[in-house]
Every structure is written in structure tokens, then in C-alpha cells.
């Protein structure tokens, strides 16, 4: 006998076949990945602060400060992109097909613009990664965040293509929600890095 006696006490078939927000199990996977990457950012920031403690001045003697212009433009644009992002989040919770499609397309376009701005910004850091530890850690922070923007752009772009070419189901609206939440994470994660790279050397 390879089975045990059971008695049936309930029926699950009436349950819905999908959910959204934190009820949805994939939301938790997304959150898990945010924790992982958030931890990486936190530790990279800690490296930056640690190296300040090991240096007589910051930036070290002979190093120039990074330009504020392009980084401020980028930061303003990134924060501004939260508006359409949160709008997209709301529309996806309401499961409205047309707004979700066109807002996703808009976010993809905005993402491309932000990556272009970031590329210019990287050219104005005024230090090379192989020049000294200051250069290395500044580039590390910037490269970590840039790779996040790039992968987020990739995900948003692929989603947009799919949204336009397919019927959108509940699970896909949840995917759009998760992508939106991740975009918010990318925006929030930038703010402390922006302060560390561009403002702390001016304050220290």
C-alpha cells in the first residue's frame, strides 16, 4: 500500500486563476531580485565610503571632480520618468489594454533616451577606471547602475513588442506591474549613488 487514507474537506476549484500585486507569487521573485541587487549597490557604496577613509583627501590629490551638468540632466530625466512609469503601473492594475500598450512603448523610448544620456554622462566623469582606486570605485558604481538601466530597457522593450503583438492576459498584466516596480527600483537606487559620486566629493 503506497497511499494513506484521506478525507476531503474542501474544494479549491472556485479560486481565481490569477492575482496581481503582492498576492501574485512572481511579485515575490521580483522582490527577491531587487533585494539581491539592492544589496550589491549597498556594498558597492560601502566600498566607496571605505576608500574615502583610506585616502588623505577625496577625490585624491590630482583627481578632478566629476561634471555636474550631464549627471543632473540625467537624474532629472530619470526621476521624471517615474511619472509615466507610475501611470503605466496604474493602468496595468486596471488591466486596460490600450493605455498599457502605448505607455509601455513610451517607457521604451524614454529608456533609450536615458541610456543615451548615461553614455554622455560616462564621458564626463573626468577620471579613468585604471587611474587610481577613486577612478575604479566611481566607475564600478556607474557601471553597476548602467547595467541595470540597460537590462531594464531590454526587458521593457521586449515586453512592449509582445504587448503589441499578442492578446494580453492577467499574468502579462502582472508582468508589466513587476517591470514597472523594477523601474521604480532603478530610479530609487540611482539617488544614493548620485549623491555618493557627484556630491560627497564636493562636501568632504
Amino acid at each position, binding site marked *: 500500500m503506497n497511499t494513506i487514507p484521506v478525507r476531503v474537506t*474542501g474544494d479549491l*476549484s472556485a479560486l481565481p*486563476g490569477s492575482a496581481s500585486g503582492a498576492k501574485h507569487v512572481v511579485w515575490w521573485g521580483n522582490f527577491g531580485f531587487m533585494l*539581491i541587487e539592492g544589496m550589491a549597490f549597498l556594498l558597492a557604496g560601502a566600498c566607496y565610503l571605505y576608500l574615502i577613509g583610506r585616502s588623505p583627501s577625496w577625490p585624491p590629490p590630482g583627481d578632478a571632480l566629476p561634471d555636474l551638468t550631464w549627471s543632473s540632466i540625467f537624474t532629472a530625466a530619470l526621476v521624471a520618468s517615474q511619472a509615466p512609469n507610475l501611470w503605466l503601473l496604474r493602468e496595468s492594475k486596471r488591466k486596460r489594454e490600450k493605455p498599457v500598450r502605448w505607455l509601455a512603448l513610451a517607457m521604451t523610448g524614454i529608456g533609450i533616451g536615458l541610456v543615451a544620456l548615461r553614455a554622455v554622462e560616462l564621458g564626463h566623469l573626468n577620471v579613468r577606471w585604471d587611474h587610481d582606486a577613486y577612478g575604479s570605485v566611481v566607475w564600478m558604481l556607474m557601471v553597476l547602475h548602467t547595467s541595470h538601466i540597460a537590462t531594464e530597457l531590454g526587458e521593457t522593450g521586449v515586453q512592449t513588442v509582445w504587448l503589441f503583438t499578442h492578446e494580453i492576459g492577467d499574468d502579462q498584466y502582472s508582468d508589466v506591474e513587476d517591470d514597472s516596480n523594477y523601474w521604480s527600483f532603478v530610479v530609487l537606487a540611482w539617488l544614493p549613488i548620485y549623491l555618493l559620486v557627484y556630491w560627497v566629493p564636493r562636501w568632504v
Partner: protein
Amino acid sequence: MTNEQKAELTRTWADPPGLWGFLTTVDHKRIAARYICSTIALLFLAGMLALDMRLQLSQPGMQRMDPQEYNEAFSLHGSTMLFLVSVPVMEAMALWLVPLMLGQRNVAFPRLSAFSYWLYLGGVLMLWVPHALNITPDLGWFEYPPLSGPAYSPGHRADIWAQMITFTEVAALAASVNIVATILKMRPPGMTLARMPLFLWAMLIASLMTILALPSVMLVTSMLISDRLVATHFFAPAGGGDVLLFQHLFWFFGHPEVYIIFVPAIGFVSAIVEVFARRPMFGYRAMVLSMVAIGVLAFGLWVHHMFAVGLPRIGNAFYTAASMAIAFPAGIQIFCWIATLWSGRPRFDTPLLWIVAFLVTFVVGGLSGVMAAAAPLDLQLTDTYFIVAHFHYVLVGGAMFPLFGAFCFWYPKATGRLMSEAWGKLAFWLIAGGFNLGFFPMHLLGLMGMPRRVYTYPAELGWGTLNLVATIGSAIAVLGGVVFVVNALVSLRRGKPAGPDPWGGATLEWAAPSPPPQHNFDWMPVETSLAPMWDAKDGLAVMEGLATGSREVLVTSLVEAEPEYRQHSVGPSIWPLVSGLAVSALFVGSIFTPWALVWGALPVGAALTLWFWPTRPRATAGPFARRSG
């Protein structure tokens, strides 16, 4: 459920046949099985390396191995045991057991578990193929710069080691996210957090620790490769970098890592003690709080690996206090386990013997750890054989012994047969006895001044006898290991058939048939207490209603485990393997050129796109709608 429905359920959850089924399966049990077989094979290889080293050290001045061979041996042994065996085997046991203990049909993210294995396999190959090609990493399992930096380690050995870690780190993180989501959102109705078996608490905590600790080693190994490949100056004092930054980042990961290995073992011990004492664990709440305390405290201890590097005294004093403090929850747990046995009706079958060996052995390791936690005393103990003894006592006694017990305990569930008790007891005595004979003398050797990582030593220092004893003990333990594995293999064919519940288990995995069908359970069990199988007087309470024609799992609420919705569970897919290959190419390439990160990202992006591409009908509205004729 009718017979037709059962047949349909079996068909729905079946894998495609043959090699294609092997490559595309997302059945958590099949994936866990390949993980466990891989870790056993690597455990054997690491054990051979250990025997090799022990033979070299059995007498002073031996010349079996030259320094290069010896340094490769201890580096490969340590790296294999820590990155390719200890953590992965715990993940694998969790992957196999968690859905079963939750009454579920699969984990939250089935393809992610397959991906996790392929990345792990990539890590195995990343380390062992270079060994076959004679470019073995040779700087230990934590390669400190500047020795591992570009100036003192030309070539690619150090990069190979660093990138192996990246593979295994991604695999571990993927597995951990999977386990956390499964445990938080896929518990059976009635399994509130307060009624969750201790093993599930252990895996939840260990997985959360993994999520927070592994990014540190990812970061630091990437920084090391960067220093070596593109001339960054993170760890180069001449460029304003700091050698100790590596150590801080590495041990911020490294200390939680050893608790990530130990905490699942807490789960194994608790499960086995309960069943073999035939009463629920004494001190459930104390056990949970202790595990949480250990999980949190583990992140505040890392500097105790750095007591001799010259950090300020006041910092060392803090870490002494924290390192001793973590012995408090561990001590509580020891009491609870023994108390459960004391007040229960113990049956001394092999799994319980392993628990007794755990108690006797692990406590020695814990106490030697408390000794090393005193920063000034550590200045005599660190980097000597005392520490080698300490960490083997806690890792072997604290993780391996419970693992062997767990293996014997759940083997009948996985295979439908029991392992031989006689051969199991022989293996037990050989391993437990051999280990203690082999490693206890190392405490004395350390106190007699023998440093770590030396390929030989002079005769005048009097270390020969104890080294010989250590070698003999280790050899006995390895022999015991062989007996254990042979028992496992032979019992597959000749073991006594076990029904669903040969031990009188308390938790839900014992409600499934042995071995479980691919869909695990025909119904969704309901949890009525911490020991639902013992409560089930007139049959286990269950619910029906999950689909039989498509793959479905139940998702429940976070704290109270109220049913919320039915989640479609993904079936077999080739994309985890394809993505694994693409990611492996990116990782291997980036040892040789940073451009691999850019170019390698393209196939990875393509593979992930295909992985996540939803399968739904084409759009019927909007600019790209299908035109129906």
C-alpha cells in the same frame, strides 16, 4: 478523484521521454536528484584530494607532492567543498523536500530551479576542467590579494577561481529566491507561520541569508577580476586601493556562508529528532527565535576572520562579543534537541545515530569557535591547525553528519526502499569515529605551533606522530564514506520496500507515495497542527479542486496561509539549459576580455527573451493585430 482524473493528472505532469525529458525537465525532484548526485561525486573528489594532502603530511619532510601540487590540492579541496558541495547540497535537499513538505506539486519558479542546476554544473566544470588541463587555482579558497592580484599571479588561475564563484553564486541566488517565494506563498491551507515545520523555517532563513550575503562575494570576485583584467586599483595600495577591502567584502559573505551551510542542518536535526523521539520538538518557539537570531547575528561577525590583520582594538572587542553571542542561540538549540530526546521515546535507527554524532561533534567545533572568538587568543590560534580542526568540526560535525542522517531519513521517500541498517551503522561508526580520530589531533597540532597550508614541516618540531594519527583517521572516514555510498546504491535494488511512511513521520511529505509521482500529491493536504500526520486519526484532511488537465499549484497568503488563487505552473522547457549555456559563455569569456560582457549579453538576452516569451494568442486589436480573413 476518479481514476480517469488521476490518469490525466499523471499525464499532465509527465516529462517528455528520454534525453529531451532529461534536458527540459522542471520536476523539482529530478533536478534535486541530479544536484545531489553531483555533490556526492564532488565530495568524493574533494575527499581524494584530502587524502592526498594527509598522506603528504603524515610524516615530516615527505616529498610525495611538491609545493605547487599541494597548494593546488588545498585550494581545490576547499573551493570544491565550500562552493560546489556544502551550499549546493543544502539547496538540493531543499529543492527536493520543500514542495513535498508543503503538500505542493512543484516550486514557485520551476524553470528557475533547472537553470540553477545548469549554472551550478557550469561552476563545477569551471573549476575541474582547468584542473584536468593543469591550470588549477592554487591560492586557497579565499584568494587574498596582492597574492591573487595581477603582479603576483600572472595567468588565469585566479580568474578561473573567481569566475567559478560567479557561477555558483548565481545558481545559489536563483535557488534561494525560488525557496523563499515557495515557502512564503505556497504553504498548504492551515500552515500559518506559527505552524510551519522547523525545516521550512531553516530553509527560509538560510535562503534569505543567501540573498543578502552572496552579492558580497559576487562583487569582490568581480573587483578582483577587474584589477587583473582592466587594471583597476581596488586592492592595490600603490593606486590608493586597500588590500583589506578584499578581506572585508569576502568575509562579509564568508561568515554568513558557513551559517548558510549550518542552518539547513538545524532543520534536518529537528525533523529527525522529532520523528525518532516520537514527540514534537520541545521549545518550538525557542528554536525559531534561535534560528532567526543566528541568521541575523551571522552578518555581524565577519571581522573575527581578520583579528590578526591589525585593525583597531576597539573594533576587535566588538566582534569578540558578537562572535561569542552567537553561541547563545546555538546553545539553546542543543538543549532543545537533547530535551526532546530525553522526554520522548527514542528509537536508535541510523538517522538518529547521525544526530547523536552531530551533538557530540558539533559542540566541540562550537566550543573551539568560542575560543577563537577571543581576539587576543585568536592571535595564537588563527592560521594554525587549531582553526583547521575547528572548521572541520563545525562543517563535518555540524553540517555533514546531519546531512548523512537526512539522507538516510528521506531516502525511503525518494526511492521507495530503505537503506540497509547494518551497513548504515557500519558506515556511521567508520565515518564518525574516523573523523574524530583524524581531526581531534589537529587541535593539538595547532597548539603545538603548526601553521596552515604548509606542504611539509621539519622533524625537530615533533609534529610527526599526531599528523600520522590524523592521516589514519581521515582514511578511515573516507572508507566509511565509500561504504555509505555503496549502501545507497545497492539499496536502490535490494533495499526493503518502504511504504509512504516507514518511520512514522509527522510532516506532510510522508503523506505522498514513496517514491512520489511527478505531481507529488493527488490532492492538497490541509495542515491542522505542527504534526499533521500524527493528528490524522481518521484520514488526513485534504482539499481537491486543482486542475488535472493543466499544471496548477495553489498560492496562499503570506502569514495565515489562506488559499488565494491557483497559479499556472510551467512545464518542461529547454530555455533554462539554453540560457545556462549563454550565461556560461559570457562568464568564461569575461575572464579573457571585458568585451565579453557586452557581446555575451546578446545571446543571454535572446535566451531569456525566449524563456519568458508568453504563449498566448496573437492580438486582435491595435496596430499589430492579426487580420482575420
